[in-house]
């Protein structure tokens, strides 16, 4: 009984190691997270700035958000392949598609966050003698932070999804390992890579969720 148990355990573990090594999953994971990281950083910078910009130009806010909404409507694989003629195969179109997808949640949440700051705080800030610039940086932006992080969290999920699809257009990453598993019909590979990809995504989402909750609690929002 005991022996058998050990047998199964070591079998699984050795399988895992074998799958991990033959598919160079360390390298794949690094590729995966690199694309993910670049896309998220780019999307955050562009998204937050765009949100700020739209906040300062309320007239174009609506048309711009509608445009981003339209981008969002395009299904992921068609968006990815539409970028191929411009960027060729590989990491670039994958990153660009991730950024395009992530822009809407980040921009929209930044814009709404800034706009919907409780006016009583803006009023008291003004009464204390804060300049409009100080009000933006010391009051409006910090108070919208939970909202902005909420947008970022949605973007994280989108980006993980698109980066994984990147495997289909030769971007490498864990998607490439999934494809290898499916094409060669290797059950172990599919299981290991599938769960690992899902786990990574859940972990990042969980982390972002924790930050979001902590901000909300710190601000005493609920």
């Amino acid at each position, binding site marked *: 009984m005991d022996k058998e148990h050990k047998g199964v355990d070591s079998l699984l573990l050795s399988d895992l190691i074998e799958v991990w090594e033959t598919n160079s999953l360390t390298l794949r994971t690094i590729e995966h997270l690199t694309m993910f990281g670049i896309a998220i950083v780019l999307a955050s910078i562009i998204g937050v700035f765009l949100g700020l910009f739209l906040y300062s130009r309320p007239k174009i806010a609506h048309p711009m958000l509608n445009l981003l909404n339209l981008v969002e409507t395009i299904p992921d694989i068609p968006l990815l392949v539409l970028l191929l003629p411009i960027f060729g195969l590989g990491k670039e179109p994958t990153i660009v598609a991730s950024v395009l997808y992530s822009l809407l949640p980040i921009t929209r949440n930044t814009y709404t966050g800034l706009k919907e700051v409780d006016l009583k*705080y803006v*009023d*008291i800030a003004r*009464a*204390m003698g*804060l300049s409009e610039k100080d009000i933006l940086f010391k*009051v409006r932006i*910090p108070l919208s932070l939970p909202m902005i992080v909420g947008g970022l969290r949605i973007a994280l999920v989108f980006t993980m999804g698109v980066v994984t699809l990147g495997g289909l257009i030769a971007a490498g990453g864990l998607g490439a390992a999934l494809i290898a598993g499916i094409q060669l019909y290797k059950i172990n590979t599919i299981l290991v890579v599938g769960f690992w990809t899902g786990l990574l995504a859940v972990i990042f989402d969980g982390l972002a969720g924790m930050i979001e909750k902590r901000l909300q609690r710190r601000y005493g929002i609920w």
Partner: protein
Amino acid sequence: MPSKRLFDRIDSIQLRGVTKKYDDRFAINDVSIDIEGGELVIFIGPSGSGKTTTLRMINRLIEPDSGTILINDQNVMELEPVALRRNIGYVIQSIGLFPHMTIAENIGLVAKLEGWNEKKIKDRVKYLLDFVSLPSEMFMDRYPHQLSGGQQQRVGLARALLMDPPLLLMDEPFGALDPILRKQLQEEFYQIREKLGKTIIFVTHDIEEAFKLGDRIAIMDDAKLVQIGTAEELIFHPVNEMVASIVDSGKKFKHLDTLKIKDLISPLECMYVHDGSLDIESAISSMIEKNIEIAVVSNGSGPLGIVKLIDLLRMEDKDSKIADHVVEIPSFSRNELLSSSLKIMQKNGHSMAFVMTDEKLSGFLFPNDAFSQVIG
């Protein structure tokens, strides 16, 4: 970047024919007032009569349609708004502490923008917190939502005092607090006002508060200034029925000799009562949750005395029972004569007393409150 110190003291504030309209309705209609340096002027009047608008024009949160506002003979419209506001403290009913900043950051924000160094800011914040009776080491690093309403309002006052402004604008600062807490803060404010030596313009809808705190009282109605004067002037020479009725509601009782304690009782709500066996830690959290600053300590059969939140917070041994830290206060039966009880309290320096009905605690008596109610 430091802003200019516009005035070290207030010599005079003058409103000359100030008018503000929203659409076709007057919020303020041709209001002229002269305020002297060091005065505490109270604005009182029905809701919507223009008190807040008048106040907010002085620090340019609202700009008048016509008329001028002069501080020390300088037209505020010619002063840079940011600098002007840093020279004027502003306290409002909803307080508006920034939820994302600690208490220390809330109070010190403008000093930071002015480029003070960390040490100077910290020292100033500590000084101000102690000044408003909040132990600084306990409160500096908390967030506003961790404070009770009364504590938040103290922080609001500390924040307004940061730059040592010679002028304070206060818009119903105690309006949202429950009656007993309000009386306590009024009391404290009355004491520190002397130390502050500032010019204060104070809006309220509570005529008792006006009598208690104000040097002069300005009565507003329907966008107009109806009358301004001392309590006595308003009581003895009201210009019209409306003034008379506002003022009269504040002096319900004219003959001190015949008054009984029950005429001036502040009723007790049961949330104030805490059992003596409670430890300090739990008492503190209970009081903060209920947003009260004093608690009546009882031993089941009757009240032992009171404890103040401020004192509990300062205690070292948080596990000891509140019964061991009770401050005894006198207690009177509700049918005793007011005048004799007040004399006793005054002699012993008590600022509050229990009122008993049939051997059971039914409320409080605040002598200062009583005095202000029987003016005239």
